[in-house]
Structures are given as C-alpha cells and as structure tokens.
C-alpha cells in the first residue's frame, strides 16, 4: 500500500516526456491553457506583422527608395493590417478574456469548454491559411502571392479580373474561418458570464473586466457576422461567378464598403473595450482606491456598444454619400466621444487622491490614458465630415488609428501582461526590464506617431510605396522610421523579459499586487479546477472583504 503511494508520488515528480506535454496542450479544453495559447499565438503574429511594418518603414525612410518593389509593398500593408486586426488584436484580447473571465467570476471553466478549444483552433487555422498564401497564392497564373488588396479589400480590387490567382481567396477564407472562431468564443464568453457566476456575484457586483467583455462579446455577435456574410458574398462572386460587387452587372462597390465598415468600425471598439477593462482593473489597484463611478462605467460601456454600431460610414465621407447621411454619421461619431470621455474622467477620478504606485503596469496605464485621449481628439477631428474630406486617405488617418491601436490597445495589452503574468506563470516580470521597455517604447511611439500626423497634413497619401522629396517629407519620414526601430527594440526587451522571468523571475505568490478580485485568491498559476470550493461574494471587492473583515465593502454597496 505504502509502496504504491510512493511510486505514484515519484512518477508525478519526474518530468513527463515532451510529446505528452504537447499532446496535453493540443487536446486541452482548459480555459487557462487556451488563454495562454491565444496569447502566444497573438505574440507570434505580433512579431510577424511587426516585421511587415518594419519593411514598410525601411522602404519609406528615404524618397525614391527601392528596398522593396511596389507589389511587395502592397502585400506588406495588406498583411500587416489584416494580421494585426484579426490575428493579433482579437486573439490577444480573447486570450486575456479566456484566462481571466472564469477566474474573476468564480467559475471553474467556461460555459462550453469544447467550443472554446474549437474556436481557438479555428482562429489558428485562419492565421495559417492567411500565411499559406505566401506559398500557395500564385495559383496557375504566376500572379503574385500574398494578398495585396488592402485590409478593406474594396471592390473591384477583389474581382477575378484584378486579383487573379488565389491570394484574395486565401484572404477571404482566412477571415471567414477566423470569424467563425471569434463568434464561437463570443457566444462562450456571454454564456459564461450570464450562467456561471459564483453565488452572490450579481451583475451589479461583477468586476468591470467581465462586464466589458460581456459588452464586447455582444458586439462581436452583431458586428463580426456582417463581415462573415460579406466574405460569403465575395466567395460567391469569386468562385461561382456571382455579381454582388460586380459593377458591370449592376452590382455595387459601395455596398461592400458599407458591409465592411459595419464590421470595421465596431471592430475598433471591440479592440479597445477590453483595454478599457484592463485599465479599470489595474488603475484602482495601483491607486489603492476602488474604481470611481462603477455604475457609470458600466453604463458608458453599454452606451459605447450601442452608439458605435451606427458610426461606420464615417470611413466613407469621401465616397459621395448624401449631405444628410454625412451629417448623421458626423453626429453619431461625435456622440460616441461622450461616453468615452466619461470613462477617462472616471479613471482620473480613481487616480485622484490615491496612493499611486508607479509599477510597470501602472506606467503603461498612465501612458494609455494620455495617448488614448490624444487619439480620441484626432478622432473627433476626423469624425467631422468637412475635416475628413480634406485629410482622408492621408498619413494623418494612419497616425490617428495607430495612436488608438498602438498608443491605446498595445499599451493596454502591455499593462495587462505585466499585471497578470505573475498569475499565469507564478513569476514576477522584471521591473527593471519593464521600465526599460516602457520608456523605450514610449519614446519610439511618440517619435513615430506624433510626427506621422505632419506628413498627412502636408498631403502625403497613405499606401504609397515611395514619395517625392518635397520640403520636410524626407526628414519627417526618416525620423518616423527611426521611431519604429526604437519600438522594435523595446518589443525585443519585452520578449526577453517574458522569457527570462519565466525561468529566473522572483516567485509571485498568490497576490503580489495586494489586489481585490477573485483571480488573486487562488495559487499562481491556478490549479486546473481554479477553485477548490466555489467562493461566495458579498461585494465588488471580495478579497478586500476577506483581508479587512472589520470594514468590508459589503456594508456600503
């Protein structure tokens, strides 16, 4: 009897062969492992799409540069945009949602664990199909490999006549498949949040991260599906000879624009709202204060969700819509700034009077606040039809949306990595490397994207592979490219930090930040079953109640 127990213990202590570990990870339905796989997958593609961005910036360093051909440049901006949105942005945010939502609401797994794994592997297949186009996109035509139609893929660029070979097919199928994966995960997150909360966790007590992910997933259901529908139509056009977007047979190119942006604009809110969620968890903890205005934060999020569904045509002001349509979409676009402004005020209200600790997650959060505000202001400028007519399709627009997506989303994601890495691995990330990462990235970011507004105002169009040496253009573009290199170095520091801290970082313990939400009540990394006994909560900060039984939050809510 005792010898049996001993052999069992020693068998567990020896390391299992790597094939078995791999098999466990590939076949897993555990939300934590799937979450980590989402994150690794997204980080891989962040590197790939980052390289594509670097190729573009090297090409644009000097006027009349010939680092790559115009054709390759077109492929690079198409793949960069598509990859960053569908295979970095969505997986990285779903990775965090997958990992954190069940832990934060006191559940043992997602509502549909197998659907969860299925959705992840669909997303993976999408990325693989997209990048297989580099090999298989030629078809029989010798017509260029990877997609070169831009990430909007406006008709008629996608028509057989203008895009022979299979590159556009790979693009379409990849987005269709990945879209189904996204919808599956969104269904799962909604069902998890509505059906799996632990006793006592009413919706009014739920932490803001699950709340915002609930709104995001609802938006995914309504906004990503139009893209899937449009991709199906494009498949019909390309494979079956249909005429949806074939203007010669009565089809409409503008209809594709509408369908694409009905997806495309809510999509940027789908990307930014999870980062709002990170801010709403990180800023209170490092300000040592509960979030300011919790109900208003929830209300503002739901409001953003609704209003952002009716702003899409502000991407199309130069298409030639009627004056009434332009006015409508200007008004809705400016209106969405109001709930967003409320959120920024509430984060500042949380900081106000707090004992602020400038740890690395907090540094990235503060960077997020300033940069997202700036990005919002240029967004308001571009949201006005009159102004957009002047600057649309210029580098000003590129600067604006990179300000939101890099200065906003990426800073938020970095903050989340520094904040939750200890929970996922049991080790702290190095603060020293973290500060190097932050300052390098901040300097590189501002050098690139602050300056990028200026060539736009000077009239430099986006998506050009080279430019004339007009006054100021050369030096500005050179500095923008230098900034891109600094950001690349900063990301390498980050990756080095992730790897080295995994082996040598200090032990994190259960609760390294003295935080208040349920994920910090379990060990780091959490056991496969998350909670040995399902917790019961009585307030929005269950761990505060646990640590301060003499003055629990539940008395005041």
């Amino acid at each position, binding site marked *: 009897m005792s010898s049996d127990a001993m052999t069992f213990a020693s068998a567990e202590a020896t390391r299992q062969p790597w094939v078995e570990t791999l098999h466990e990870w590939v076949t897993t339905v555990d939300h934590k492992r799937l979450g980590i796989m989402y994150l690794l997958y997204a980080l891989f593609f962040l590197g790939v799409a980052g390289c594509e961005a670097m190729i573009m910036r090297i090409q644009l360093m000097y006027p009349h540069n010939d680092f790559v051909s115009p054709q390759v440049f077109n492929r690079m901006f198409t793949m960069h945009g598509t990859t960053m949105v569908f295979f970095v942005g969505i997986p990285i945010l779903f990775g965090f949602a997958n990992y954190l939502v069940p832990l934060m609401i006191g559940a043992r797994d997602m509502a549909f664990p197998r659907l969860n794994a299925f959705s992840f592997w669909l997303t993976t297949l999408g990325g693989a199909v997209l990048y297989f186009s580099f090999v298989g996109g030629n078809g029989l035509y010798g017509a260029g490999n990877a997609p070169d139609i831009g990430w909007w893929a406006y008709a008629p660029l996608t028509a057989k006549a203008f895009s022979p070979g299979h590159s556009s097919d790979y693009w379409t199928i990849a987005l269709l498949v990945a879209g189904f994966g996204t919808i599956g995960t969104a269904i799962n997150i909604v069902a998890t949040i509505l*059906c799996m909360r632990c006793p006592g966790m009413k919706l009014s007590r739920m932490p803001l991260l699950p709340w915002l992910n609930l709104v995001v997933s609802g938006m995914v259901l309504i906004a990503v599906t139009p893209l899937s529908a449009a991709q199906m139509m494009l498949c019909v056009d390309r494979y079956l000879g249909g005429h949806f977007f074939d203007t010669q047979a009565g089809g409409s190119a503008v209809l594709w624009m509408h369908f694409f942006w009905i997806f495309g604009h809510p999509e940027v809110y789908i990307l930014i709202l999870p980062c709002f969620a990170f801010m709403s968890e990180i800023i209170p903890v490092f300000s040592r204060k509960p979030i300011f205005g919790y109900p208003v934060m929830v209300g503002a999020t739901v409001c953003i969700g609704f209003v952002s569904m009716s702003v899409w045509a502000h991407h199309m002001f130069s298409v030639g819509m009627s004056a009434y349509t332009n006015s409508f979409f200007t008004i809705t676009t400016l209106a969405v700034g109001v709930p967003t402004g409320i959120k920024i005020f509430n984060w500042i209200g949380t900081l106000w009077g707090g004992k602020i600790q400038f740890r690395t997650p907090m540094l990235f959060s503060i960077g997020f606040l300033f940069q997202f505000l700036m990005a919002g202001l240029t967004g308001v400028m571009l949201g006005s039809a009159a102004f957009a007519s002047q600057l649309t399709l210029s580098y000003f627009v590129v600067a604006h949306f990179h300000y939101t997506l890099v200065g906003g989303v990426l800073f938020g994601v970095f903050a989340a990595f520094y904040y939750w890495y200890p929970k996922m691995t049991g080790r702290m990330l190095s603060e020293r490397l973290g500060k190097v990462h932050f300052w390098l990235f901040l300097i590189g970011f501002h050098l690139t994207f602050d300056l990028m507004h200026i060539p736009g105002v000077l009239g430099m169009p986006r998506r050009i592979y080279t430019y004339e040496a007009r006054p100021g253009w050369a030096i500005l573009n050179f500095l923008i490219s230098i900034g891109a290199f600094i950001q690349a170095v900063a990301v390498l520091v980050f990756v080095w930090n992730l790897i080295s801290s995994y082996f040598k970082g200090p032990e994190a313990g259960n609760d390294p930040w003295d935080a208040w939400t349920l994920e910090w009540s379990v060990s780091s990394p959490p056991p496969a079953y998350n909670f040995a006994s399902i917790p019961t909560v009585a307030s929005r900060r269950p761990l505060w109640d646990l640590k301060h039984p003499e003055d629990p939050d539940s008395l005041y809510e």
Partner: protein
Amino acid sequence: MSAIATPLPETRAAWTLPYRGKVGIACLIIAESSIFTIFVVAYLYYVGKSPAGPTPGEVLETPIFYTICLLSSSLTVHLAARFLQSGSRGAFLTLWFLTIVLGGLFLFGTGQEWHRLIYEHGLTISTNLFGTTYYSLVGLHASHVTAGLIMLTTVLLFGLAGRVGSEQSARVEVLSLYWHFVDVVWVVVFTVVYVLGR
C-alpha cells in the same frame, strides 16, 4: 458602530442563473440574424437592378404548400419537446419524426423550385444579379434547414435507440429553439423574396 460590523450573510438558496444552453443558442441566433440581415439588405438593395432578365416577377412562383409545411413543423417540434418533458416518449418520437418529414418536404420544395428555375428559365447564380442574390439568400436559409435536419435526425436516432428521456429535455429544447429560428427566418425570406421583391 460595532453593531454594524458583521456583514449580512448571503441567502444561498436564492442563487439561480439561466441555463447555459439557452443563452448559447440565443447568442447564436443573434449572430445568425445579423448574417441574414446583411443578405436580406443585399437582396432588397439589388431588387430591380439587374441589367438583364429573367426578373423575379417573370419566374418566381410562391411556394405556399412548402411554406405551410415548414411553419407547421415549428408547432410539431414544440409539441414534441413538451411531450418529452412530460415523459411520454412515444408521442415525442412521433412528432419529432413528423417534424423531420415536414422539414424534408420543404427542402424538397426548394430543390424542385431550383430545378425549375435552372432548367426551364436558365436562371443560375451567375446569370444576373437577381440570380446571385436569390440563390445566396434562399440557399443560405436552405443550408440552415439542412443543418437543422441533420441535428433533428441525430436526436431521432438516439431516441429510437432509447437514449433520449425527459432528462434530455433541456437540450432538446435548445434544438427546438434553433428550428423555430429557421422558421422565423423563412417568414422574413418569404416576405422579402416572394412578396416585396416581385
């Protein structure tokens, strides 16, 4: 002050949350509705914009009988789920089988109509804009009917093997919600294609 220092214990018994299957299928229905909306918008936007015939007015015939089949199958699937819940398995299997027959009839009707359109009127998906929008919208719906029939048949086979009892009624209810959705979509498609679109 010390009198209020004890937090009130939660009443545990009152904690019930919705069934995850129902929430999941509701989300799927929202997502699918969005897909169908885009196809319906495309259909309506393109009505009458084909430069060449045939036009809907010339070739379409209203499939009244098959529409009645599909819509009444919503009733049979609902009753079947009710019978399963109350434990009468024989009635459940009969009505479930009837649902499959009615759904199959509808699919047969669609096939017959497509055969007529293709061989008598020469209308295919690539003939003109009407063909493109018509076959994709009706085909998208028919593919949902097909998926539903496959799932209904799976349940029927399990039922005949004696594996479906009242303990499965919540899951069967989820499938019946999907089938209701397919029927409601047909009401919309019918209105758009056969009433407004002509």
